[in-house]
């Protein structure tokens, strides 16, 4: 399943990118804070508060001029976003292979989108966090980061497996995973022995899984987790254990084809032999007699 592979790869790449940017920005923040604290300590070492980053940033914002524009609520929101983002991205990378981005990380995504919604809805509050966090510079990093993760979520079609409102995996998905695990355990059970034995023993389980998957494909309830699980199972079945239906009934197919291909030959032969040939109707116009000059020309040529 090429797509699954590529999408998994895409997930990885995007996540890596996101992480690296996040980390970079974190480092920047940290160094800023350090600078600020050095500056503060230079002023008055006694006043230096030894507290958590939140309060320290609060203190800093009071002192550092360029931070004035960001108000405390927004700063709080940003910190929550930061935490949840890291948690979700972490989960994504961990579930990249075999793919479990929907079933493992849906909670993280819900939390992340909740805080993002909070930020983007906070436009009438005192600090107008939507504008100050999301729109105040050219890069719009938070918006970009969230957009990337949202894209991953969309591409993996997780809504099909997870009920986002109730924060739970859908029953159908659980059922499928259960069935699939049964097939895999069946494979595990017999894989030591002869593979043809496995093909016979696990066939019923595998086929019911196939049917289930086909049904889910039709009603559009597939997400990347299910697709990947199925792909792996199928690859095991047909490549590793080589349980493919053999070509049967080749003789009748060839016979019927030959018959079909001979029909036109018979048709054309019989119509050639039995059909009367259509005669062309000729028209014989009356002509003026050739004059001498024409005869001369003809003579020249002949």
């Amino acid at each position: 399943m090429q797509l699954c592979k590529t999408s998994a790869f895409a997930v990885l790449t995007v996540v890596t990118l996101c992480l690296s940017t996040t980390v970079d920005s974190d480092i920047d923040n940290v160094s800023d804070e350090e600078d600020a604290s050095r500056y503060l300590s230079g002023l008055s070492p006694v006043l230096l508060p030894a507290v958590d980053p939140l309060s320290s940033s609060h203190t800093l914002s009071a002192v550092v001029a360029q931070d004035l524009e960001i108000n405390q609520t927004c700063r709080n929101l940003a910190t929550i976003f930061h935490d949840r983002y890291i948690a979700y991205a972490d989960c994504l990378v961990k579930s990249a292979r075999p793919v479990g981005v929907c079933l493992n990380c849906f909670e993280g995504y819900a939390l992340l989108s909740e805080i993002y919604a909070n930020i983007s809805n906070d436009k009438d509050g005192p600090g107008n966090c939507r504008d100050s966090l999301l729109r105040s510079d050219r890069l719009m990093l938070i918006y970009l980061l969230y957009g990337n993760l949202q894209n991953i979520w969309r591409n993996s079609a997780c809504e099909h497996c997870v009920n986002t409102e109730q924060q739970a995996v859908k029953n159908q998905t659980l059922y499928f995973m259960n069935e699939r695990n049964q097939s895999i355990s069946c494979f595990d059970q017999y894989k030591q022995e002869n593979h043809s034995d496995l093909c016979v023993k696990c066939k019923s389980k595998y086929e019911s899984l196939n049917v289930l998957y086909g049904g889910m494909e039709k009603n559009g309830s597939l997400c990347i987790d299910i697709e990947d699980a199925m792909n792996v199972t199928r690859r095991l079945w047909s490549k590793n254990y080589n349980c493919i239906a053999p070509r049967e009934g080749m003789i009748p197919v060839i016979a019927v084809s030959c018959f079909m291909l001979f029909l036109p030959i018979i048709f054309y032969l019989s119509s050639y032999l039995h059909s009367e040939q259509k005669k062309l109707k000729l028209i014989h116009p009356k002509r003026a007699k050739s004059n001498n000059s024409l005869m001369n020309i003809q003579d020249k040529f002949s």
Partner: protein
Amino acid sequence: MTKTLTMCDSSVVLVLFCMVVLQIKGSKLIWARKHWNPPHVAMKHLKPLKSSLDYDNSENQLFLEEERRMSYLGFRCLEISRWVVCGLIGFLTGLIACFIDIMVEQLTGLKYYVVKENIEKFTAGGGLSISLILWAVLNSAFVMVGAIIVAFFEPIAGGSGIPQIKCYLNGVKIPRVVRLKTLLVKVAGVICSVAGGLVVGKEGPMIHSGAVVAAGVSQGRSTSLKRDFKIFEYFRRDTEKRDFVSAGAAAGVSAAFGAPVGGVLFSLEEAASYWNQMLTWRIFFASMISTFTLNFFLSVYNKNPGELSNPGLINFGSFDRNFLLRNRLWVVISVFVLTCECGGPPGGLLGALFNALNYWLTIFRIRYIHRPCLQVMEAMLVAAVTATVSFIMIYFSNACQPLDVVQGEDYPLQLYCDDGEYNSMATTFFNRPEKSVQNLFHNPPGSYHPLTLGVFTITYFFLACWTYGLAVSAGVFIPSLLIGAAWGRLIGIMLPVFPLQIWADPGKYALIGAAAQLGGIVRMTLSLTVILIEATGNVTYGLPLMLVLMTAKIVGDYFEEGLYDIHIKLQSVPFVHSEAPPTSHWLTAREVMSSPVTSFNRVERVGTIVDLLSNTSTNHNGFPVVVSNANGEEPAKLCGLILRSQLIVLLKHKVFVELARSKLTRRKLQLKDFRDAYPRFPPIQSIHVSQDERECMMDLTEFMNPTPYTVPQVSARTHALVPHCFFFNILAFFFLGGWTGDSEGFGQIPPGRKLLPWTQVCINSTTITGCLVTRCPSFYSNIWVTQTPEKTAHFLRQSTKLYLLLKEKKKCFVAGQHE
């Protein structure tokens, strides 16, 4: 001195002659010169059924009266209604295209679904022969319906219809070609044949459909349905109708390929007999409306109203612009030109092979498979064999591709592939051909196995060749594109073997191959290039496409004519090409005309007229009207031309001199009476004339065209009449009774050829007429491009009169023209 009026006998002798010359090739040429007998050689493929359009307005007294009555406002209204008609043509053509597309999609979808389910059911059990039979039967059933309606109800609707439309636009009226019934059969037929899995496209029939729509809409009535809306009555004559038909053909092309400019150029290229700027602009309007209508309704059908992404029935998809990889400009350009030039010859060769095979097959069909039931059987057999071949290829193919859930194939068939994969060969056959072409253009490298492509090319080539010419409505564009795209892609895959690879993407080679193959088969030039550019939606590909089409045409023409020309020839259509055959320049009118002439007196006995019209040996469509001298010694003088259709209307209304005297209150015959009878004039047999009436007299003065076109008689001087006629292919191809000099009148040049508009005035000065063309050809070519035909004719008449005045003062002829 005996009366030496000569008269043509067949409908188109000049044309015949030209066909002879065209047929003579190589060694045959010498033979033909030795045994010079053009008519009989030429007659080989001619049937006397066709007549030509009356492109010349009959400027008789009725016409002049009507024109005199028309106000300035009236002309403005006419112009507006022309635009309205063109808009309607575009709209209806787009709707028809939309209907065909949706029906084909639904039916093929149904068929693929049934067959796929069946194959899946039998894959494991080994009963696939049943699936094969099911597929073949389904195909045959669809095709049977399509073939029955074509073979039994309207044979003219068979094939792509482009040859017929080409003939119509060039002035040859093939019976029933633009009737409503033809349209219905065409539309239903093409749906059936595409749904029946034949190797055909629905693009060519679209052009024919557009033409029929145009012919119907512009007349404001339907003769078949016996409904007359009493509108657009002015357009009920060949001149106007042909203009609208060219708009319809353009709208058809535009809807088929999403190529409005290509459509206009198609009409221009195929129908260059008469043209003017306003016509171009109107036709372009019709084309635009047509493609937009199709686009809009398809977007509604796809439940995406407003997303106008389907301008045509076929859509090549979008190509990226950077088709060259390396940066060193001169290397890139030289290799690129080389590649394009290399794309052409195989296209031309394969096209010529295709045409030659199809030519022999068609001759066989004409000779032996002429009964409708045999034709239906043949079509069904082809359908069954197509299904069988497709099945075999799918069955023995090992090309598997992983399934793509997000934007997957419509009907993926696993067959013997691993689970989670599908048979890529099956997708090619379980797709509409348009989609397959698109896939060949756009699928990423590695999607196709070279062997698959090779086998596909060969089988599709022969199947397409076998299919074209069956009694089903079907076009050849899509099969050609498919074949070409397949071998083009194959070349693209193989090229990395050589250090020539400058295009990374084999899909671009597929495009070049498709263009080469199509160009090699149909041999269109300008319009095809523009159509392809518009279909790719990328002007950047203009030059490669043009080079490829050019080389393909050059190579192909060396071996065999274009497919449409072959079929025009085989349908016995007296088609005149725009160029005179190269060896015909020494011929004179005398050698191609026939004698003696059949003519009427200005006041003629009704009995004579009826007899001449009924006589099968004088089945002309136009007759000269002459004034005989009292003593009968002098040859008769030409004074006008009267058409068969006019005579029939006159007979029907009993416009006899005696009756006019007796019934003074009788209504005067008007031009409307002629228009009401147009275009289906009753045959002469259906007109009853009593014995008494036979003795009446008919005065033709009022109705004849007093200024018919004539050619000079032939003397010993070198009058290269035939080249002249061809030269004026552009100006005039219509029914006319050519007439020669008054001193020793030779006869009627056969109807159905184009002659020199000015020669009628030059009756006494034939020598100078000859000079006129040879001296200032550019002058005339300016005229035909920039003036309306009517104006041209008029202008030429005026200028010749001017010449006659000037001649007395011994002034230069050319100088007179420039005034």
